[in-house]
């Protein structure tokens, strides 16, 4: 008997976990080198290696699943668990920053003037660009759901259109947020207000960029017929991630932008 008697995927040996670990080492030590010796070479090398690792690892997964048929229902179930667990870990990541924000803002110290926003801070008006950003992300949640239903119903043109629209809305959010950052009257160095604002919204923005990239990869795959109307988990994972990014924004908006002003 040469073949397996189970439906799981015993993966072939791969170098990408090793290159990923090396990239992590180079990026972390490179960060320390940058801080102490003003050279970004090591860190940049680490970043390039990370990007190469991600590209090749995920390319291999697409080959194994879409082109070789290794993603049977049990394997897909495992991938679903994996994505859910990953998103859960990201929820806890953001929970930390919300904890920090509420810790400092619920009981503002005398150094801040005993008030929130602290003395001297002019917060952004939550009903201007931040509200537009909220509308943009909520709309993108609608369009990504439209894309999902299009895929399930076999509507190729609509799937491509709605997925493209979702990505454009994500890019629009990023552009708006970038201009907000540029125009803001306060910086990350402006006490705990600046720290909590820019670290929380900054990590969120990074996740928007990651999510938009994930969706863009899905668009390329959709155009190239990778997805079937029943089996399109890569897209579902991207959509889950995108909804998560949207929800984090809603919490950021209500807590930091609105209540925090």
């Amino acid at each position, binding site marked *: 008997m040469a*073949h397996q008697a189970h439906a799981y995927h015993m993966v072939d040996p791969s170098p990408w976990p090793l290159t990923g670990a090396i990239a992590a080492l180079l990026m972390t030590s490179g960060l320390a080198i940058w801080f102490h010796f003003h050279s970004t070479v090591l860190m940049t090398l680490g970043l390039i290696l990370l990007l190469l690792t991600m590209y090749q690892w995920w390319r291999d997964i697409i080959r194994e699943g879409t082109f070789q048929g*290794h993603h049977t229902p049990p394997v897909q179930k495992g991938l679903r668990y994996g994505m859910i667990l990953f998103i859960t870990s990201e929820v806890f990541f953001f929970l930390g920053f919300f904890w920090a924000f509420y810790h400092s803002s619920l009981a503002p110290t005398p150094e801040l003037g005993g008030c929130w926003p602290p003395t001297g801070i002019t917060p952004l008006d939550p009903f201007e660009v931040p509200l537009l950003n909220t509308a943009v992300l909520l709309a993108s949640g609608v369009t990504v759901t439209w894309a999902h239903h299009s895929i399930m119903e076999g509507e190729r043109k609509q799937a491509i259109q709605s997925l493209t629209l979702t990505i454009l809305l994500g890019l629009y959010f990023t552009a708006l947020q970038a201009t907000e950052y540029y125009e803001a009257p306060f910086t990350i160095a402006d006490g705990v207000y600046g720290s909590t604002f820019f670290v929380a919204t900054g990590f969120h923005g990074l996740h928007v960029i990651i999510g938009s990239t994930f969706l863009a990869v899905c668009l390329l795959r959709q155009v190239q017929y990778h997805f079937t109307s029943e089996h399109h988990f890569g897209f579902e994972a991207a959509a889950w991630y995108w909804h998560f990014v949207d929800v984090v924004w809603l919490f950021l908006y209500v807590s930091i932008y609105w209540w925090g002003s």
Partner: protein
Amino acid sequence: MPAAALVRGLVDQWLYCVSVFGRFASGIPTDDEQATGLEKIVLEASKRGTDPYSILKPQEYAGSKQDPHIVPSITNKRIVGCVCEEDNTAVVWFWLHQGEAQRCPSCGTYYKLVPHELPH
């Protein structure tokens, strides 16, 4: 330019999709059309009502002489672990051989090895 390539690709694919899939303006393949490898084998087997890769829960049997637990095997013997009573922590392990049904040495329920065909 990537945008031009995307547009050209889309036009090409649109023409291809109309010709091959024969569905105007839709054109997302189904698993029936596009599944390959083990995924395809599992799909076709489940359409026929078989489960060659033991994805589904095993069927329940009475475990009596007339209705022994059926144990599929790709060779002529398989290890059986009998949890005689629910929540027992001591599992009774034994080899089940081809031929007459064997009894668990602890609780006496019957197990019968049956050959299991793997698609190749």
